[in-house]
């Protein structure tokens, strides 16, 4: 366990019920200061609810949460004082200029004129909004809107910033630039809590958690998750099979002995193979079914593999419990 002062977020057995429905079910995790914490899960699985609980918008039905050392139950207001938040739709006032948006959020956080001007300069330097200061934010492209929104969220120099799907609907270049910016800020000691759908973004996080219908089913660094025994059962390994007619190949691969599971990834198949079946044997097996393999190679599981595997297991467990 790390020293409590190094803890940005400590969530202990969080529960949130809406009537009969349990949206967040006994969720615990810790985020260390300086981490980029990726919070993943399908739509409606409780990601936003957790954010709302951590920012004091939703009372907890059970459990405890501390954010930057402050108890959310006791002093939600101080929590909000110490965090930045950027929502998925960049929550800007489109009929106000870039400068007016920044000024508004600066005043909301109670920045004096002097400090506001200084921070505004720093942020403009950081995100390059300089030429657009007097432009209405409605006229900015998606990527610039997002930079402005991030700027608004960090005017008051929060040490922890929540980003709720920061890259939904923006172009790949802007996506890449945002992540570069996050790494730069992270190096200055700012902690990020990021929700996302993109697996490549998850791979970039230093710490990842996966929530599935209210239950946290994965929590750790991307590398440690890849090594989980559930993901890489004893006596198996993962391969990538590239073949033409990939859908037919998949259908056949699933029937072969020694292949535990197989899914399509783009133009290739990711498969979980028994250890006693080596690559050449596999190639032969497929050839017998008249599938000519172009390439076949061992593969470390991707985070997507990890989440798919864990989700299946979780569903199987849930069904077993019901039965």
């Amino acid at each position, binding site marked *: 366990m790390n020293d409590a002062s190094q803890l940005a977020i400590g969530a202990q057995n969080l529960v949130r019920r809406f009537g009969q429905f349990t949206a967040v079910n006994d969720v615990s995790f810790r985020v260390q200061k300086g981490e980029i914490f990726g919070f993943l899960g399908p739509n409606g699985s409780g990601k936003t609810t957790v954010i709302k609980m951590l920012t004091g*918008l939703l009372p907890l039905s059970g459990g405890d949460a501390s954010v930057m050392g402050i108890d959310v139950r006791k002093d939600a207001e101080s929590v909000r004082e110490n965090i930045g938040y950027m929502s998925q739709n960049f929550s800007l006032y489109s009929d106000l200029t870039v400068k007016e948006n920044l000024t508004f959020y600066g005043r*909301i956080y109670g920045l004096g004129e002097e400090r506001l001007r200084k921070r505004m300069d720093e942020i403009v330097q950081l995100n390059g909004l300089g030429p657009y200061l007097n432009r209405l934010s409605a006229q900015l492209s998606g990527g610039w809107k997002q930079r402005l929104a991030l700027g608004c969220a960090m005017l008051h120099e929060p040490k922890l910033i*929540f980003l709720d799907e920061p890259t939904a609907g923006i172009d790949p270049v802007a996506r890449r630039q945002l992540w570069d910016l996050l790494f730069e800020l992270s190096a200055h000691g700012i902690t990020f809590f990021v929700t996302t759908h993109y697996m490549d973004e998850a791979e970039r996080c230093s710490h990842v958690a996966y929530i599935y219908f209210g239950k946290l089913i994965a929590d750790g660094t991307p590398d440690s998750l890849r090594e989980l025994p559930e993901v890489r059962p004893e006596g198996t390994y993962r391969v990538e099979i590239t073949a033409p007619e990939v859908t037919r190949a998949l259908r056949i691969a699933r029937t072969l002995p020694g292949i535990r599971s197989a899914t399509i990834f783009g133009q290739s198949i990711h498969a979980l193979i028994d250890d006693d079946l080596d690559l050449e044997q596999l190639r032969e097996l497929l050839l017998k079914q008249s599938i000519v393999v172009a390439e076949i190679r061992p593969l470390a599981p991707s985070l997507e593999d990890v989440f798919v595997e864990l989700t299946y297991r979780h569903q199987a467990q849930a069904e077993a419990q019901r039965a």
Partner: protein
Amino acid sequence: MLNPFRGFNAVFYKEALHVRRDFATLFFSLIIPLLQMFLLGFAIDTNIRQINTVVYNADGRRESRELLDRLRNSDTFHVVRFVEKDHDLTDAIVSGKCRVGIKIPVDYSDKLLHGMSAQVLVLIDGSDSSVAGQAINVTTSIGLDESLRRVLANSDAPFPVDMRPKILFNPDSRSPNFFLPGLTAVLLLNVTTFLTAFSIVREKERGTLEQLFVTPVRPMGLLLGKLLPYLMIGFFELCMILTFMRFVFSVPIHGSVLLLAFLSLPYIFVSLSLGMLISSKANSQAEAMQLAFLTILPSIFFSGYIFPRETMPKFFFILSYFVPATYFIDITRGIILRGATLTHLWVDALALFTIGSLLLVVAARRFHNKVIMA
């Protein structure tokens, strides 16, 4: 840190920027009331004059022509055609060309001269009740008057009863005097309710409201900051309407303008609260628009603004007590037309304050539960 109005300045300033940027909305919210004023002030006259009338004078002699002249001189009837057949008489009414048909029978003069009772048929188109009512009143009173004159013609005795109606406060029965004070109440409600509801729903649509809740802004600071600009607009609008009413439509203000301004405050709070209630329910501006109409219709139809409350069926009469505009219309008409003071209007004022504060509490609670905690 514990300032419950934290964020008020920032929100107020930002809201003022919105109003300034969205000049079109502001313009229309101020211009449309003016248009309505001009419509009601100039175009609509509830006094019924010059009803199109068709006459079938089967008699044609002097007595019958005298009767027709008296009807014409009343200013109520405008004889547009003469017919020679019963059928044409009804036809003129059925076709909508005339609203009143008068048939003087062939023996009218004879009967009068022989001291018998002469009958005159008056056909009235009942499809417009106020026209029909006016036509009945005027024809019967002319008939009565004519009879009395004939009965008393040979004696020097004066009329036994002499009714002398005197209309206080609006002696010429001018329509603007009646309509515009009520219009003030209706417009004030419309504009502030719309603007408030829209300003909140717009932030809901954009997601900025959600963003604000994650900042240290206090709910009170946020709401007041958002509402105050519209309260000011509402107040400005009131002054504008009163100015136009006084100087363009020459409706005299008999009472204290200050009292009127003071009593308009709880009323503006009512409309702000209604706007908030709407915004806690509606998720889009279109939805807000429909809900706003829902609140505005009762204040037009059940408040006594157009139709007198006293003639309403019991149910609606009771309903009208729950319509805030009812009280404010009482207040505006009272102060403007009758020069009433607080001693006359305190019941209305109390009712308005009560409804205003109740609504504000309900709206704030609902807003808290449905919007902040959603």
